[in-house]
């Protein structure tokens, strides 16, 4: 039988799913054991015991200096920024993306500019951003917005434009004004697509968040990672990276779940 037609059984699929993760863990353990043998104080690949110890300290012991549980206070700070950044980006994308997608005049005005802006490397403009927005939360949120919003706007305006012209004409024959077409025909149909774009932007959003927190912060996941990087505390960095990845995966799943719940018809559409 051709390989293309060979489907692993249920059990085999599960085993195959886990295989690369298992290999990764084994490789880590071996690497760690080798390095720790050479230097018992080695910090690059800490042992499982050290990792467990650190996780316990960060997540379940109050920090002696501030009394906070560091992992949770960092997570709270970062997630707040992330939500704010993504929320603002989404709102911007909805307004600007719909305007571009809907109105030829706005399209002529904004589309080339947005295409240009989406190519600007945001990290290089950080100094300006800090001076304009200050060093507080605003500039961190702004970095996420600058990094994420142009992509979302472009995606949204493209998917608004991709709606069959016939639907718009049809709505006009049903007495819709431009406003009503935007509100009742285009908006509801691009929302599911917006959620999908948002999922794809979760990774970049975390990236910008970490970059912003590395510049100036007093809490946050990125702050902690860059702070402890000063003394190569990989026993903190590894759990934090794993935690960020887990958060991103959970966010991804939640957004997809929300899309399927709130827009059941978008699933049907895909199933056809």
């Amino acid at each position, binding site marked *: 039988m051709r390989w293309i037609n060979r489907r692993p059984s249920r059990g085999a699929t599960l085993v195959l799913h886990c295989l690369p993760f298992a290999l990764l863990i084994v490789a880590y353990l071996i690497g760690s054991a080798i390095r720790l043998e050479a230097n018992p104080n080695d910090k690059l690949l800490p042992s499982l015991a050290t990792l467990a110890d650190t996780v316990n300290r960060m997540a379940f012991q109050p920090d002696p200096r501030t009394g906070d549980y560091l992992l949770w206070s960092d997570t709270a700070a970062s997630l707040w920024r992330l939500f704010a950044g993504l929320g603002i980006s989404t709102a911007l994308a909805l307004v600007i993306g719909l305007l571009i997608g809907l109105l030829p005049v706005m399209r002529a005005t904004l589309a080339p500019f947005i295409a240009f802006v989406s190519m600007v490397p945001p990290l290089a403009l950080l*100094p300006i951003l800090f001076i304009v927005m200050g*060093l507080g939360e605003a500039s961190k949120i702004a970095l996420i917005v600058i990094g994420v919003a142009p992509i979302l706007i472009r995606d949204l305006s493209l998917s608004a434009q991709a709606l069959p012209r016939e639907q718009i004409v049809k709505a006009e024959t049903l007495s819709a004004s431009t406003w009503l077409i935007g509100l009742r025909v285009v908006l509801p149909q691009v929302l599911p697509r917006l959620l999908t774009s948002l999922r794809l932007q979760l990774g970049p959003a975390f990236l910008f968040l970490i970059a912003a927190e590395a*510049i*100036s912060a*007093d809490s946050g996941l990125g702050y902690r990672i860059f702070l402890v990087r000063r*003394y*190569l505390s990989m026993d903190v960095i590894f759990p934090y990276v794993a935690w960020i990845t887990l958060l991103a995966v959970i966010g991804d799943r939640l957004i997809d779940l929300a899309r399927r719940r709130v827009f059941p018809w978008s699933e049907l559409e895909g199933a056809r």
Partner: protein
Amino acid sequence: EPKKDFKVAWSIYVGWMPWGYAADTGIVKKWADKYGITIEVTQFNDYVESINQYTAGAYDAVTVTNMDALSIPSAGGVDTTAVIVGDFSAGNDAVILKDGATLADIKGRNVNLVEFSVSHYLLARALDSVGMSEQDVKVVNTADPDMVGAFQTPDVTAMVTWNPMVSEIVKLPGATKVFDSSQIPGEIIDLMVANTQVLADNPDFGKALAGIWYDTVTVMASDTPEGAAARAAMGAASGTDQAGFEDQLAATKLFAKPADAVGFVTSPDLSKTMDHVRGFLFDKGLLGSGAPSADVIGIELPGGAVLGDTGNVKLRFSDTYMKLAADGAL
């Protein structure tokens, strides 16, 4: 075990620019050839990354401050020897206030600095000098390349940083330098450190490093056209020009003569300085999360005296190679 190929990391800072110049102008090659070895010199833009790479074993030697040498490689179990004491900061690190004339005005402010760096140490020493402690301010971690931009934002009112940022910031309207490292002379030391084991197995490597260094700083410190050209080149490499570079140099106590450096490390002040430093690091939990006291890591001084645990000596100040240079025995 003895080997022939060595890797040295350096990062962009006024006291370490000679390393780049030496690599560019062939001084490194000259000395390596002399000892029949090869030395690869790598420039880092990111200081912390260079120390991390050294700590992880990717490099045999690295440029680092006395404090970071103790908190990063030594606390990370890498037995490290200071081969060359290049300079100490005499004004390169500073506490700068906006709308404040004296250090006492810092009370209650947010202070932007690189946490756990020498700036943090400088702040602790500064606060100490006016009877305050870190409880009286709030520290906000801020990345060093962004200090100049950050200072211009309204919510930043106090900052601790180093050159070249200090010289840029003091030019800004409203900025006042209220404390600098010239007030704690000799406490912030810029070193070239190497892995003790590597050095023990390959003393030629240490000799080559010393040879390179003093060859280069001799040119650089000389008041000749070649000296000026060298300073201009170093200025350009660090992103400024000759004038800017000489400004920074003025705030640096460079040991251009090996004998001065030997004198500095063998003076009893070093022990006092390192005691301050390890106290600060222990306070911040940077000597290891389970460290019972500041004594966990032993610091060996020239002559063999040890500060702290003699069974766990991880940082050694050595005058061996500088002495050889002073004696012209390289």
